[in-house]
């Protein structure tokens, strides 16, 4: 059981959790993730370690389906059943010169710890963060705290520049400030588009892939991705890979494998009544009542 020390909303559907997990906190490095199981009958989902203190780790969760939405109903004082990690390889941190870190949606949270590590390693760090609309742009203030510049884009122009993250990137690539390294984390189409912007310039570009995972230890092979024509297990060989080598089409197809089942689970989850004055988690899962109360 992993107690939640802090829980607050960063954006609609995006919630930050600080969990007590001393072993993981001590060991984690930027780019690594944990696998979480919220309740007894729950699935195992990967979430990036956005930050860590002596005894606690921070996760930033976007509610996209049943498990993430259920997790986002939890509050400080409650507990998460299983948290295992740190998993995956840490990001490779070098002194590249100028590094551009691009985050789309919750991808910003995943890129955040690596951006900070790049800064600490002596890079000039420029961030480009995007979202559909103003409220979905997260961690802007935190990034401004240490980045040399932060560009914001929104699809609807409600904040920052109207358009996609690739527009400012294109300008940087063409301009005098040509980046030496790019890290892009976000939806698959965004990462693919970024790869195409940097490819002609031969700029080293990494992306963090999000295939469906089960164990996270290399045991099931479900997270396999194709990079440079070879198969890798993202949970142990990744999650970061060379963007110019990744087969995004296979990744997108495999991530859609359970769409029907996911939609059914989400519909059933939503169909449950959630009066705001009651704990929504215990409402959905009465067997959790004693734990949630404690």
């Amino acid at each position: 059981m992993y107690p939640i020390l802090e829980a607050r909303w960063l954006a609609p559907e995006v919630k930050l959790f600080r969990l007590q997990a001393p072993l993981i906190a001590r060991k984690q490095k930027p780019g690594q993730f944990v696998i979480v199981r919220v309740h007894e009958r729950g699935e195992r989902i990967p979430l990036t370690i956005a930050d860590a203190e002596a005894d606690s780790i921070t996760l930033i969760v976007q509610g996209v389906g049943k498990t993430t939405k259920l997790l986002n109903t939890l509050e400080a004082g409650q507990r998460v059943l299983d948290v295992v990690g740190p998993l995956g390889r840490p990001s490779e941190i070098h002194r590249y010169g100028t590094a551009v870190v691009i985050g789309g949606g919750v991808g910003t949270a995943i890129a955040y710890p690596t951006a900070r590590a790049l800064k600490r390693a002596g890079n000039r760090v420029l961030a480009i963060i995007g979202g559909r609309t103003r409220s979905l742009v997260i961690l802007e203030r935190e990034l401004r705290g240490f980045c040399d510049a932060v560009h914001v884009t929104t699809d609807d122009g409600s904040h920052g520049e109207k358009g996609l993250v690739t527009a400012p990137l294109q300008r940087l690539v063409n301009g005098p400030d040509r980046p030496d390294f790019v890290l892009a984390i976000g939806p698959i189409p965004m990462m693919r588009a970024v790869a195409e912007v940097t490819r002609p310039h031969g700029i080293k570009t990494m992306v963090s892939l999000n295939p469906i995972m089960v164990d996270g230890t290399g045991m099931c092979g479900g997270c396999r991705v194709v990079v440079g024509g070879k198969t890798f297990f993202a949970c142990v060989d990744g999650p970061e890979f060379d963007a110019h080598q990744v087969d995004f089409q296979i990744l997108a197809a495999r991530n859609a494998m359970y769409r029907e089942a996911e939609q059914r689970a989400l519909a059933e989850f939503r169909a449950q009544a959630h009066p705001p004055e009651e704990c929504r988690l215990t409402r959905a899962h009465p067997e959790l009542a004693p734990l949630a109360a404690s």
Partner: protein
Amino acid sequence: MDAANPLPLKERMRLPRQRMPEQAPEARRENFAEVNLGLDAALARQEALRCLQCKSHQCFTGCPVGVKIKDFIALVLRGDYLAAAAKIREDNVLPAITGRVCPQEEQCEGRCILGKNGEPLAIGYLERFVADYERRVGQVGLPVKAPPTGKRVAVIGSGPAGLSAAGDLVQRGHAVTVLEALHELGGVLIYGIPEFRLPKQIVHEEIENLRRLGVEFRTNVVVGRTVTVDELLGPEGYHAVFIATGAGLPVFLNIPGEHLCGVYSANEFLTRVNLMRANEFPAWDEPIYDCRGRDVAVIGGGNTAMDAVRTALRLGAATATIVYRRSEAEMPARVEEIKHAREEGVRFLTLANPVAFLGDERGWLRAIRCQRMALGEPDASGRRRPQPIPDSAFEIPAQVAVVAVGNRGNPLVQATTPDLKTNPLGYIEADPETLKTSKRGVFAGGDIVTGGATVILAMGAGRRAAQAIDRYLRTGEW
């Protein structure tokens, strides 16, 4: 002991081997409940009467851990089932499990003298009967513990090797912590072998017994990530480490199309169902690709392949087919599993080898291209080597494929413990008797040393390791 048997030898040899009562094939392919129902006391006695109590008792030499088979059978005949169970437990701490899953035909029963002219004694059925009796009456005799030694041992992995080592070490007075990467304990017994062959309740009970003995269990700890072996031996304060991490790295075929949706490793397919209960989706959250009405092909001929193909049937597959490159005679699976699979309607496509998975435009599997094979000369394993027949390609329809062609050692522990010697296949090198590795204070056993083997061999390794660890902790000699 033979006094308990009223029958002269000749008559014993005329008795037929008792049949295991089981769920009817049509019924069981619709559910995940155990197929074998177990002998009752009358059947067990009837079977035990067949034992000749041979002086040479070859059966004993066939058992990898040396269960005193004829002694426990004699106790069955006396009706003293608890004593029989205790007799088995002297050498085998997981009898309810091994009675169900040991490949008896190659081990104890394979050596039984009765098998020379007829059918061997059903030692596995009797072992299971006795162990189930003991469980039912709730009188599993917990052994007495030696006084605390003040030494701490970390066991990595909670499969049969880890569990049996933990049990023996705690009895010898050491403080034992089992570290397990997954959220549930039991290793392959939980995530690999399906409920219809080995009810999870049995594994839970065995673990509960160990907990009562004082073994500490910690789930969600991936050694190599959460903590390293060096940290366990250093700041974490353990005096010895036993690595029992199994052979959990899936081997794929490396043929085109393996990334298509619908292609699974057996580990993933079985884990989704056994550990995550995808068969109960959406009451449990984890989904599995809907097999209902679909054609499922399982590639391989071992226990894992049989488990996967029978699981597919139970998930509602329209057809469930084993694709195996040798002939049925070479299949490494237990004879009983092959028989059960066939009764349930599994099809067998032997002497066929997949060469490509074929997908549709969305990236989903639709068929498998195979090649016909012929058997040539025996290879290193003594089995005849399959060779492709030229121009013999053909396709079989399949929307789900499960690759069950073996496993390798998971490298996480080795990769973070540089002074641990491994062999070219990635398995840890350990002395077969003492299970000592190249690193002081570190022992290893089970599938991570031998490669995929059997529950009883893993258990035997765990027990030998416990002995050697105990000696090391008491003498300090390496």
